[in-house]
């Protein structure tokens, strides 16, 4: 029950630099998208479609990164039992689900012109879909449990096991697909393309960090409110 966390989170009372970071992240994203499109030559076979990669690949990377955060904070909660870690894990999971959904949508927008179908059982897309379902399961578990300590402990365990399974899922799906379809990876060597990709990846990373932080702050505020009500209930009891 660290009261220290309260001071650092109430944005109004002290000039927290997080909103500034938020603006920076979004502006940086716009800038890197524009530069990527500007400097990248049309790809030999895919033409401009390749530009979709500037949003699809970073979103996919973030979708792979955020479950690691869920794993890290989940493990930390099991070790420290600090509620902050539980709330950070939950925030990361919610952001991860959003990015997973975005990645899937972009995957389909890319698949339509490239292969003429909205959905292909491409190895990466399919494992992204499984990851999305696992995250949905995690969020459903959290929604269905009311007792705070049990919810924190169980979601930490489900988060850890889920993250453990991500590489295995990817491997099994890739084996399952490579037997039937050549692995189509748009890795062209063009330097400008790689620079554009990396630039956008960092920008998306900053946006994700801002999202997790913002969601965490909201969750912590809610938790502090709960705790204040509890203390009040404790106080009234004694007074009576």
């Amino acid at each position, binding site marked *: 029950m660290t009261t220290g966390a309260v001071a650092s989170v109430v944005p109004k009372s002290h000039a927290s630099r997080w909103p500034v970071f938020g603006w920076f992240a979004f502006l940086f994203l716009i800038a890197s998208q524009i530069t990527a499109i500007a400097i990248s030559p049309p790809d030999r076979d895919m033409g401009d479609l390749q530009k979709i990669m500037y949003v699809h690949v970073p979103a996919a990377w973030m979708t792979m990164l955020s479950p690691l955060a869920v794993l890290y904070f989940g493990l930390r909660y099991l070790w420290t039992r600090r509620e902050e870690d539980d709330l950070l894990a939950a925030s990361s999971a919610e952001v991860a689900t959003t990015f997973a959904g975005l990645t899937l949508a972009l995957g389909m927008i890319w698949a339509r012109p490239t292969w003429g179908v909205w959905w292909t059982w491409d190895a990466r897309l399919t494992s992204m879909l499984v990851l999305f379902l696992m995250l949905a399961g995690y969020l459903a578990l959290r929604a269905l449990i009311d007792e705070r300590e049990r919810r924190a*402990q169980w979601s930490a365990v489900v988060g850890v096991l889920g993250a453990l399974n991500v590489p295995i899922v990817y491997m099994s799906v890739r084996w399952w697909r490579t037997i039937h379809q050549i692995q189509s990876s748009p890795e062209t060597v063009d330097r400008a393309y790689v620079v554009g990709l990396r630039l956008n990846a960092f920008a998306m990373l900053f946006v994700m960090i801002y999202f997790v932080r913002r969601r965490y702050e909201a969750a912590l505020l809610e938790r502090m409110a709960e705790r204040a009500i509890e203390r009040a209930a404790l106080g009234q009891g004694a007074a009576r």
Partner: protein
Amino acid sequence: MSWRREWRRARAIAWKDLRTERRSKAGFSSVTVLAVTILVLFGFALGPDASVGRDAAPGVIWLAVLFAGVLAFNRCYQIELDGGSLEQLILYPGTRRAIFAGKLLANFVFVALMLLVVVFAGIVLFQVRIPSSWPALVGILAAGTIGLVTLGTFYAAMASRSRAREVLLPLLLFPMLVPVLLAAMEATKALLGGNVMGDAGAWTRLLVAFDVIFLVATFLAFEFVIEV
């Protein structure tokens, strides 16, 4: 904590679960009949064409076992919750892992027997030719069942004690079982297709690796689940 005593406790829990399962009418037979029913429904969905059926048989068999198996996993904790005996189970001395081991054992026997019936029914319904290397097939089915039962028993320990448990267990379990399903289906198909062991071997290795990883992980994580 001597292993011998832990093993004795696990055996006692498995024995108790299986004895309860056999006594209660809604036990093994009804879940197995349900699995066969699901098989038949898939048969209708796939149509009477033998070659389609034969090709889809491994997948269909595993899906039938999975959907029916899920019912068994929640039930095995329901026995504890109904009589309020989960608390007494936790209060017995020794580590909580014996409880998980016992439940795991009982569920493995339950799902393995059901799988035998479903495989037999599947072979008949979908005219599947038994390959000469059928011992390998049994190995794959066993490894697949271990994966299914390990995660099923583990997640049921949480789902059985939360709201909407019938939805929560499949929602948590099925995405996690993708590697088991793919491996079991592909390995079975490779064997039934009589193709060289190479392919089935690779899938089997993945299956065994999955089983080992998640047996260790669930054993370590179980006390965090059962305690709170």
